[in-house]
């Protein structure tokens, strides 16, 4: 079942260490951009093009930093993209092995239900809106909870501390306002 915080924290730390030992620090949010690029390029193949030096894109964000995102869009079977797909599979296997997430919880999470009721539509709308703000913010910041907060602070990166300060400064008051009922 759920690990206690000491075992869980140790395991999580070992995963972050294994990543930087064997390959590079963990990051996730860039892959939302890569998947967007893959979908966009599938609809309009003119978006990402190969050049003599590598790849470029009609979109300025995909083309930045020498086209490294454009390259990943052209070759999505790369380390970082597969890493995120593997996270989904790892989450699925782990959840299945502990008996899965129950039907009521899958419909509307407990804490949300205690505060906002049992409407799945309302919950999905909030999750969708939250997803939009999270990924816009993560791309503006250049990383998310994994890349900036965990990997960044672990490396003593100034940017990681800056990000964590912003994230908690907004997240805690928001949660205090939203979740007044405990569940």
């Amino acid at each position, binding site marked *: 079942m*759920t690990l206690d*915080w000491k075992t*869980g*924290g*140790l395991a999580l730390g070992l*995963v972050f260490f294994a990543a*930087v030992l*064997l390959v590079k620090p963990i990051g996730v949010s860039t892959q*939302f951009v890569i998947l967007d690029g893959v*979908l966009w390029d599938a609809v309009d193949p003119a978006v990402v093009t190969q050049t003599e030096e590598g790849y470029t894109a009609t979109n*300025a*964000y995909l083309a930045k930093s020498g086209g490294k995102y454009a390259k990943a869009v052209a070759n999505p079977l790369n*380390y970082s993209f597969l*890493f*995120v797909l*593997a*996270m*989904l*599979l*790892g*989450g699925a*296997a*782990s*959840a299945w092995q502990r008996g899965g997430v129950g039907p009521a919880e899958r419909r509307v*999470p407990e*804490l949300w239900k205690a505060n906002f009721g049992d409407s799945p539509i309302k919950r999905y709308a*909030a999750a*969708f809106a*939250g*997803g*939009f703000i*999270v*990924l*816009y*913010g993560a*791309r*503006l*910041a*250049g990383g*998310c*909870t994994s890349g*900036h*907060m*965990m990997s*960044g*602070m672990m490396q*003593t*990166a100034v*940017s990681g501390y*800056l990000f964590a300060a*912003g*994230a908690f*400064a*907004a997240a805690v008051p928001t*949660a*205090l306002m*939203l*979740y*007044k009922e*405990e569940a």
Partner: protein
Amino acid sequence: MEIILALVIGGAFGAVLDRIGASSPNVIGRMLNLTNLKLMKAILLAIGVGSVLMFGGQMLGIVDVGHMSVKTAYLGVFVGGLMLGVGWALAGYCPGTGVVAAGAGRRDAFAFIAGGLLGAAAYMATYPAVKATGLLDAILGGNATLGTIPGTDYPGLTGLPGDTLGILLGLVFVAVAFVLPERIIRKDTRLPAE
């Protein structure tokens, strides 16, 4: 080889996030409304353990310093952090845990991912305008670290030895993980003042 590592480390990361409850919006909500900080303690411990092992490994010559990747600091990092914080509290997911939760079968996680793809696309569309505001201009030394890490080109915010400082800060994170209370807000203080 990199493909196998992606599958193994990514899979392990997803499984651990599931097992510590990080992919449950309930656990995230209780952490952020300060009623159950066990996940915060796990996160602090993980950062500390990772830091001590990485910098310790570097000093022993086991860990390649070149595997580090320090991101640049700019005002948008803070502003983006604020935005992510609001969405994190609202949805109960961050980008990685949303993916893990979708794997675990949580339906709202798919809504989160759909919103996330749209949010990322919105950033792609507005990137030139954001860049023009100066929000992305480097501050605090750019891709700086708190100390100066031997064998890297990352500017040090201070001249302190970055690897030793990394180990010390890692130990501080571990210590904070242990002393942080499991609950900050007591139930009685959350009753409406009438």
